[in-house]
């Protein structure tokens, strides 16, 4: 059985088939990229997996458990984290508190304990803080620790998105266009980090990406989509040579 599986996943908005009977599987420890022209349904698949949209039909499995009916916050508790293409950080909070929200699924304290700030709460806070510090170190975010997000540049925010997702200690991470809006240097950094996710932290990665250099550099397998349907699946080189993919991109 595969680690993560989508079976005949469909999402229809009226007559528009944003995702049309898509099936794919992600193996444990691999980096799978989804590519495709604008409007191909890539982000829709992400929103289905992270349960922001309800699929019209089809089922989603993670670690052999059916998660199609799971609420959005339950997905995170199972160990699936995601980043957002358009950056959904908590603007009016510091980097630290943003990352600490990522630790939410590991919090065990009760409301009344928190109101009194009992020693158990403090001890837990220190543990969260230590984990957050490890992520900060991993992604070189030390200079921004106490800065408000609203004052930080786009490139840094993009990294913080990744950092916040990592703070949940996910088993599977969904990266929605991790390199969009980044310059060449930042994209390079991002590609190293994505590979480190796999090799150092053992996290499985499902990624939507437009930048083919980044896709080629990090992905083990690639899925090409167009009009909500799978065009091709395989190694990056295979998919790029596939005649349907070439046609979809070049309009031949």
């Amino acid at each position, binding site marked *: 059985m595969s680690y993560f599986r989508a079976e005949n996943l469909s999402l229809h908005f009226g007559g528009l088939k944003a995702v049309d009977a898509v099936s794919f599987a992600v193996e444990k420890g691999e980096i799978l990229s989804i590519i495709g022209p604008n409007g191909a349904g890539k982000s829709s698949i992400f*929103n289905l997996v*992270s349960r*922001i949209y309800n699929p019209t039909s089809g089922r989603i499995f993670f670690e052999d458990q059916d998660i199609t009916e799971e*609420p*959005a*916050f*339950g*997905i*995170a*508790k199972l160990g699936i*984290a*995601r980043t*957002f293409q*358009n*950056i*959904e*950080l*908590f*603007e*009016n*909070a510091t980097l*630290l*508190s943003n990352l*600490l*929200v*990522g*630790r*939410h*699924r590991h*919090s065990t*304290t009760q*409301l009344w304990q*928190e*109101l*009194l*700030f009992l020693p158990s*709460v*403090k001890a837990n*806070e*220190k543990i969260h*803080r*230590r984990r957050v*510090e490890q992520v900060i170190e991993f992604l070189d975010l030390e200079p921004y620790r106490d800065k408000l997000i*609203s*004052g930080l540049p*786009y490139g840094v*925010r993009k990294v913080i998105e990744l950092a*916040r997702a990592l703070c*949940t200690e996910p088993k599977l991470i969904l990266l929605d266009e991790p390199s969009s809006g980044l310059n060449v240097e930042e994209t390079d950094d991002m590609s190293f980090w994505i590979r480190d996710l796999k090799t150092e932290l053992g996290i499985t990665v499902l990624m939507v990406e437009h930048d083919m250099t980044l896709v080629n550099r990090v992905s083990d397998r690639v899925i090409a989509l167009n009009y909500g349907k799978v065009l091709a699946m395989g190694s990056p080189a295979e998919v790029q040579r596939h005649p349907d993919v070439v046609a979809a991109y070049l309009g031949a």
Partner: protein
Amino acid sequence: MRFMFKTDYEDDIKLFPHGGYIVTYGVLLAFLVVAPFILSSYLVSQLVFVFIYATVGVGLMILTGFTGQASLGHAAFLAIGAYTAAYLQQYNVPFPVYFLAAGLLTGVVGAMVGFPALRLQGIYLVIATISFAFIIEEILARWESVTHGNEGMRVKALQFLGTAVSRDSPSFYFLCLAVLTLTIVGTLNLLRSPTGRAFVAIRDSETAARSMGVNVSLYKVKSFAISAAITGFAGVLFAHKLSFISPEMFTLQLSIEFIIVILIGGAFSPHGAVLGAIFIVMIDPFLTYLKDDVPGMIAAVAATFGAGAATAAKIQANVAAFASANGLKGAIYGIIIVLFVLFEPLGLYGRWLKIKLFFQLFPLYKRATFKRQKIYVKSERNR
């Protein structure tokens, strides 16, 4: 300039980041402890109102400032707390019991308001909370067997450990001060633990909060319940302070005053609630003072500039007529809110922080430090 060297994770968790805070808050506390014995009874009474309004302000801040759910229904929560106290007091229920019962009941009602409010955003939520406040107001006026309707209810002096605590006594003052202090400390504790961070996360991006594993519905209801419970506790004190309650005290006007408390004070820190409460409690006597004295002063100024006695008297009469016009207070509130929203969205406390930073960094302060930034991208799609 002060440099903070952090050597432990606890440095970020502590309530008082450095010794300076302990000194300032120590001085403030010392002043508040001796205040009832040195200030005039009028000022002490005003301070009690400041404590009660600030308690409600902190409660409202949890909901509106930190969770981002606007409410114009907090007068109703205050009323529920006040009436619970007045009702239970008739049956000789001891003070600690009805105090807790009032908070608990208001908290439960708050949670019940929270459920339908889950599906509402922004202005629609405001309308829903206003309707809730009207419903409660109507119930208070009609449910005569319990609330005595528009006749109102008399609230007897607070009985504690067999002694009567008069509403003007220092003991009552210290009770209100204690409730406010505990509310503020509890709120700060909440803010440095997972629940408080979940609230702020919901305020800034519900989608992102959800994908971090925050059960948004549950936390919104929690926020409503906590906010309402605090307001309920304040309601008990409010009832005792006024010693008489009736439905027309808990109108929309009062809810708006609570919004003003956090808007003027600054909705992001309990400091703001206290400053806003001082503002709202002191503006009434201030306006009365203006009404009484300003016409005479203007007439005197006119006289020194050579106006005849008849003209000066006419000016005095005209100014006095203007100052006692109906609705002037509402107009002044309105103007103040508009000015604050436009020029000082962070409120009095925000202004204080800027002044403080100016002196901390002097002479290196840059005007651009607090220039409002354009928010980069914020997707509204997945709301």
